[in-house]
């Protein structure tokens, strides 16, 4: 476990720990903490060149524009996009998904068509598609999970790990058809932590229906492991800056260039037009076609510092660290609390990210979270914007502890101590 303690040193890069020395932050799945370099970059923009972008012909506006566009390059490189123009900045993952649902979904999905998603989605990758289907009279199909927290593709755990296009195809054929216009699913569940074999699922879906549009909600993946959009073979992939050390207010929509070109704008206004006449408007090419109005300039500019920080550590090391923490946490939870504590999601740390949702005895998740808060331990309690999944699991709410690069074994040991206090107080 040496690397965990080594990683612990990263805490000094996060000013929040100076201001809250006893804070045990276990809610990075909701939002991550910010390193000083990101905060400094925000201050740099607001104090040195806080001009609007594109329109200005003066120096500080040009500087702001260059900084803004440089982030686009760095994001494109980070996820191995073919072109910078494939990166659209939105407000967050939710807006990215809604943009696709409005601009593309409403164009291509008709009555009797199908949209396929999964029961483990965050509401933001569930509701936009459900509403679209209800509006146009299309069929909304939901892939279930099995009791172990894996997508119910009728593969047991071992096969799941070795899943290949051939057997995924056989099972997916029962769900995805030629009428399926869109397949949209999460890369990593924000509750179960399950890492879905998205590459294999996409390949199988495209084999069944070559025209299918595939969308990956990577809000919980891009911050935690190496993501290569070309390797995955999807058509769209979306994520948020604030879950990967960057500022709030910035989301990313990556889409294949030809698709982005065909799509209608989501919002109309400034920045996204070439020419406007009384009777018509000519829009800019992507990505600017989708970035109407003044964006979160300072936040986009500072976002690149977050990516630089992650690249310095290396995404393989980030993943390795979280896997070790997950393994340590799962082991110690089982050892200390046995059957009194129920963990949802895969028990094999190789198949899961660093979010661990659980229920604990008869104690209500809100009480658990409140008592932990009294010990300065921040966890989340509720349905984590995944109500269909919680209904499927047969619980109203769960407690979720989630890890990131700045966490270590000490944090988990404090969590255990906190849970023991919960038992002491409420038993």
């Amino acid at each position, binding site marked *: 476990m040496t690397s965990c303690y080594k990683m612990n040193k990263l805490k000094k890069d996060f000013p929040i720990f100076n201001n809250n020395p006893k804070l045990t932050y276990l809610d990075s799945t909701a939002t991550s903490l910010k390193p000083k370099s990101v905060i400094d970059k925000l201050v740099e923009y607001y104090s040195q060149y806080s001009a609007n972008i594109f329109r200005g012909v003066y120096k500080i506006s040009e500087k702001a524009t260059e900084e803004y566009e440089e982030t686009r390059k760095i994001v494109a490189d980070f996820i191995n996009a073919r072109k910078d123009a494939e990166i659209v900045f939105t407000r967050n993952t939710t807006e990215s998904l809604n943009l696709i649902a409005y601009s593309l979904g409403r164009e291509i999905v008709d009555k009797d068509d199908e949209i396929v998603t999964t029961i483990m989605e965050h509401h933001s990758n569930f509701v936009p598609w459900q509403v679209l289907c209800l509006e146009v009279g299309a069929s909304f199909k939901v892939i279930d999970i099995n009791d172990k927290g894996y997508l119910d593709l009728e593969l047991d755990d071992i096969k799941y790990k070795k899943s290949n296009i051939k057997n995924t195809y056989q099972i997916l054929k029962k769900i995805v058809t030629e009428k399926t216009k869109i397949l949209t699913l999460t890369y990593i569940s924000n509750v179960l932590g399950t890492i879905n074999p998205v590459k294999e699922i996409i390949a199988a879906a495209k084999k069944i229906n070559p025209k299918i549009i595939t969308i990956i909600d990577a809000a919980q993946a891009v911050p935690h492991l190496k993501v290569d959009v070309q390797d995955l073979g999807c058509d769209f992939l979306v994520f948020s800056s604030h879950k990967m050390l960057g500022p709030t207010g910035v989301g990313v929509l990556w889409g294949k260039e030809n698709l982005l070109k065909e799509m209608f704008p989501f919002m109309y206004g400034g920045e996204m037009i070439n020419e406007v006449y009384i009777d018509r408007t000519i829009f800019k090419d992507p990505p600017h076609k989708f970035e109407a109005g003044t964006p979160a300039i300072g936040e986009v500019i500072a976002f690149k510092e977050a990516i630089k920080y992650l690249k310095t550590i290396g995404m393989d090391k980030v993943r390795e660290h979280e896997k070790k923490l997950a393994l340590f946490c799962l082991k110690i939870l089982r050892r200390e609390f046995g059957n009194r504590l129920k963990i949802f999601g895969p028990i094999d740390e190789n198949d899961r990210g660093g979010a661990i949702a659980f229920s604990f005895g008869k104690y*209500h*998740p*809100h*009480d658990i979270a409140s008592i932990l808060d*009294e010990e300065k331990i921040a966890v989340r*309690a*509720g349905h984590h914007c995944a*109500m269909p999944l919680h209904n499927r699991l047969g619980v109203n709410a769960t407690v979720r502890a989630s890890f990131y690069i700045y966490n270590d074994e000490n944090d988990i040991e404090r969590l255990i101590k906190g849970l023991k206090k919960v038992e002491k*107080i409420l038993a």
Partner: protein
Amino acid sequence: MSIYSELILDHYQHPRNFGKIDRPTKTAKVSNPLCGDEVELCVKIAKGKVVEAKFKGKGCAISIASSSMLTQYIKNKSELELKNLDKEFMIKMLGIELGVNRIKCALLPLEALKKL
């Protein structure tokens, strides 16, 4: 100070007036889908006064304790007195400081009372 005071824990572990009344005058059920908390409140009223009050429900310690304490308080109170009960009264009755999220748990039985 902990919100899990002795008083709160006592009412959570030994809720008063838990159950249902035979032929109640009024009943009301409220729930919070965010955490799945549920409170069903029933009262028997005679000559404009509460003669019996009970609750059933599931939820966190705060919502259970709050329901327990409220059913105790409203006994022998007039309907007019029930109308005057508000958020401030509930906070005073519980005697703990609650944040914006947990206050909803504490106010669930009051919501049920207002629905009677």
